[in-house]
């Protein structure tokens, strides 16, 4: 007999993913090995699993309950992120299909690991206890070690995996040490109990040290300064689908637990949080955008620019009002839709061009007008040009920060948009203004064409008609306070 407090229905989406994972694994073993095709059994099962998990989220929307005696909570905040993860996983699966069709590597394990990552992410944003949080985080991080080094014949990929492993382990070590410090002082790892003790003694040095160490673990996931060193090399070496998943889902997850922990567990840290986060936001925006100026490799470029975006996300967390969290969550939507579009196009084009260098994109405007046009749109959206998604994201984050008296940070963030426009437009310049020696047109599969079309429409839609997406974000943000 299962006690009522277990409230197992809340874990329905995770259960779906788990079952599909087992099913796919067994199916993989049972079927003889055919040569890799675009519609392999695993691909379809993985895609179906993610769609089912997303569908399973829908009946849970709006619920705010706890399971396993408060170990696991499901509130609209968690649901928001789970939906974001599932939707980005769908795009990532499409990228993987493109990537492996051409790379002709054995791809089934990639999808299985992807599903495993997704389970970790789902549990992570629902964690209400540091122990569960750590376990989920390790599931995610370990899966990403595999995903990064997946192209095992490429030295770059192995190097990327190794770098991610070393720095990731360091971050995990920091985090678990921080958690043990908290446990040492509180005698529990549960969020509510730690909150109670921390609110009573917010000046305790040892507790603060614990908080900082936990923060380091999250900073690694979000890739904010000074935990960003792994980004450029890992982005350059890892397979593009992995990079896309890293830059959208993993960053969003880091951001989710950051907000969950800092607003529901350590709200007493308010003044310190504002100073720390705005200083780091400043450095992160500067590092990402200035670093990106000199890049000649598309994936590296997006590595740096994703650091810059993390800085803008952090502004919302620094302000820490329901309005600013809403703005940050909305920013995350705009960032996700633009970034996924960029990486899907990079996958499709990269496979045909056999390179991720910017010079390889010369003449793309003539060779593949559709790809180039969509990439132009996605790049401008990333830079924050209206009426595209990225503009609205930046606008509302900056608006919320102006109200919170972080005016210099706003000025800096606004000016850095002009800087970022330079490197994004530099990419556009390669596609449209430079001639290529190769002139043959590039074929695009209908499924990718469809998905790129949907994402481009999404960029316009989120940028122009912000209200419904703002509504999702607002609904999610409310549950943090």
């Amino acid at each position, binding site marked *: 007999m299962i006690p009522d407090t277990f409230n197992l229905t809340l874990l329905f989406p995770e259960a779906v993913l788990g079952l599909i994972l087992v099913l796919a694994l067994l199916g993989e073993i049972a079927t003889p090995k055919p040569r890799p095709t675009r519609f392999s059994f695993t691909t379809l099962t993985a895609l179906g699993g993610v769609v089912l998990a997303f569908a399973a989220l829908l009946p849970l929307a709006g619920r705010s309950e706890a399971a396993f005696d408060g170990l696991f909570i499901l509130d609209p905040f968690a649901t928001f992120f789970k939906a974001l993860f599932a939707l980005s996983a769908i795009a990532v699966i499409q990228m993987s299909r493109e990537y492996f069709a051409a790379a002709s590597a054995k791809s089934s394990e990639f999808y299985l690991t992807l599903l495993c990552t997704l389970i970790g992410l789902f549990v992570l944003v629902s964690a209400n206890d540091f122990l569960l949080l750590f376990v989920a985080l390790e599931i995610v991080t370990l899966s990403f070690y595999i995903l990064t080094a997946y192209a095992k014949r490429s030295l770059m990929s192995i190097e990327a995996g190794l770098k991610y492993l070393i720095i990731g382990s360091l971050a995990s070590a920091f985090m678990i040490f921080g958690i043990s410090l908290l446990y040492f002082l509180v005698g529990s790892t549960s969020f509510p109990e730690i909150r109670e003790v921390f609110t009573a003694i917010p000046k305790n040095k040892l507790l603060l040290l614990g908080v900082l160490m936990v923060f380091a673990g999250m900073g690694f996931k979000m890739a904010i300064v000074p935990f960003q060193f792994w980004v450029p090399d890992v982005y350059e070496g890892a397979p593009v689908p992995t990079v896309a998943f890293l830059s959208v889902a993993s960053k969003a997850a880091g951001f989710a637990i950051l907000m969950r922990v800092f607003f529901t567990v350590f709200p007493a840290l308010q003044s310190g949080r504002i100073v720390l986060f705005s200083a780091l936001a400043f450095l992160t925006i500067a590092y990402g955008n200035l670093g990106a100026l000199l890049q000649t490799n598309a994936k590296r470029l997006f590595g740096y620019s994703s650091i810059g975006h993390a800085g803008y996300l952090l502004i919302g967390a620094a302000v820490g009002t329901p309005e600013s969290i809403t703005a940050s969550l909305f920013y995350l939507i705009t960032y996700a839709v633009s970034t996924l579009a960029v990486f899907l196009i990079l996958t499709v084009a990269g496979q045909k061009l056999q390179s991720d260098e910017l010079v390889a994109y010369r003449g793309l405007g003539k060779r593949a007008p559709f790809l180039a046009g969509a990439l132009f749109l996605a790049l*401008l959206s990333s830079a924050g040009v*209206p009426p595209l998604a990225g503009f609205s994201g930046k*606008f509302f984050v900056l*608006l919320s920060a*102006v109200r919170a008296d972080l005016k210099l940070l706003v000025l800096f963030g606004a000016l850095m948009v*002009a800087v970022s426009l330079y490197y994004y437009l530099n990419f556009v310049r390669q596609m449209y*203004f430079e001639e290529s020696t190769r002139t043959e047109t590039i074929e695009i599969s209908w499924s990718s064409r469809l998905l790129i079309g949907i994402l481009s429409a999404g960029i316009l839609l989120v940028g122009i008609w*912000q209200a419904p997406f703002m509504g999702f974000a607002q609904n999610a943000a409310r549950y943090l306070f």
Partner: protein
Amino acid sequence: MILWLPWIPLLAAAVILTIPKEQQRLLRSIAITACALPFLLTLYHLWQFDLSRTGYQFVQRYPWLPAFGIQYQAGFDGINLTFCLLHALVSLAGVFVAARTQERPKEFLFYYLILTGSIYGVFTCLDLFFLYLYYEMTLIPLFPMIGIWGSQNKEYGAMKLTLFITTGAMLALFGLLLLYDKLGLNSFDLILIQDTLRTEPLGQTFQQLLAPFILVGFGVMASLWPLHSWSPIGYAAAPTAVSMLHAGVLKKMGPYFIIRVAVSFLPAGTAYWALSLAILAAIGIVYAGFAAIRQKDMKFMVGFSSVSHMGYVLLGIATLNLTGLSGAVLLIFSHGVMAACTFACIGFLYEQTHVRSLTDYGGLSKQVPFVAICFIMASMASLGLPGFSNFIAELMVFIGAWPVYPGLVILAVLGILITAIYLLRAIQKVCYGPVNPRWNQLRDAQSFAERFPFVLLLGALLLFGFWPNGLLRMIQPALGVLLS
């Protein structure tokens, strides 16, 4: 109906995307229709505009994001109706030029319509969020248009223009956000902000702090010296239709925002910085004038000339009195039409000859009399010959500025002399003098489609040259409201 002004070109752009690129006639007719309809709509609003009323007319509003006080609000007063008329004229003339594009016409017309639509958006919207959104949206089509279809150093020109204007826009955005925060109205509604500030203006210190962000941020677009350097290079690189729209209309969005936001919302702050603005404007007049004398490339010459003329506009704004400001708005209109006409002439020649240097031409009034006459007329308008509206506009700027900055007025009048030097020299070298046999085969503008842009623009210049009150009777009451 006012909502359709930006939306007709934008929707037509979407339609163009769906049409195969082989059907060039259809593409062209769609583009021309999509510019002609808003032109007619603008004339209709001009006709319906009630001169006896002050304040905004034809106002329509739709809630957009109520939580942040954002609404889609559009309407006209005398000021933006004048700007809208300018844009209607230039965009209609420009589309005939754009339709002649041979290389990838589909994409060019697509971008042209996006550009046209977003400028209409700027001049119709009365909500700061959407105003800013449309303002920056113009950058999307500009970059590829200059970079792909431009000439001579086009990549550099496109990048420089985009980055300068974006940096300015970001400063201005910061200013607008500060204003929004300080007002505490939780609204971007321009009419509401204007009414609120009339009864309870902002504090002096805050206005002084905020005004530079607006003045400099949008001043970049108005090619305020020393932030003008993107402008001649950008115009020289841009294809003809873009040069026409940019020098004619886009640049005028800078002064438009300065009047709407700085002069109207921050009178004390603007007054505090007015002298600095006027000095920079006067330096710009003389500096860009001398620079224009040195140019051999005609497009560079006209580019510097437009920087110089924007100096008069900014000087007129800096007077902060009714005469100077209405002179500035009238000059914006006149210069916009004139600059578009000049670029259309140069572009018409360049299409055939692929040279733009003054010394390459000669005696064109024999070979291509129609275009040569148009060029001469536009140049005469530019140097302020009575009969064109530029004359009355510049005169009003001087009269307005004389009591406030007499020294600068003397400098500015000197600027007219400089204008005369480079324009008369250009006319002499291009249209008169020994006939260059190289151009004996040059074709003049003959068909309706070729002549119409020139006739439209010069006709407007002459009309309001003899009847400046046609515009001033709309501009002055509206400015009176802003200044009161």
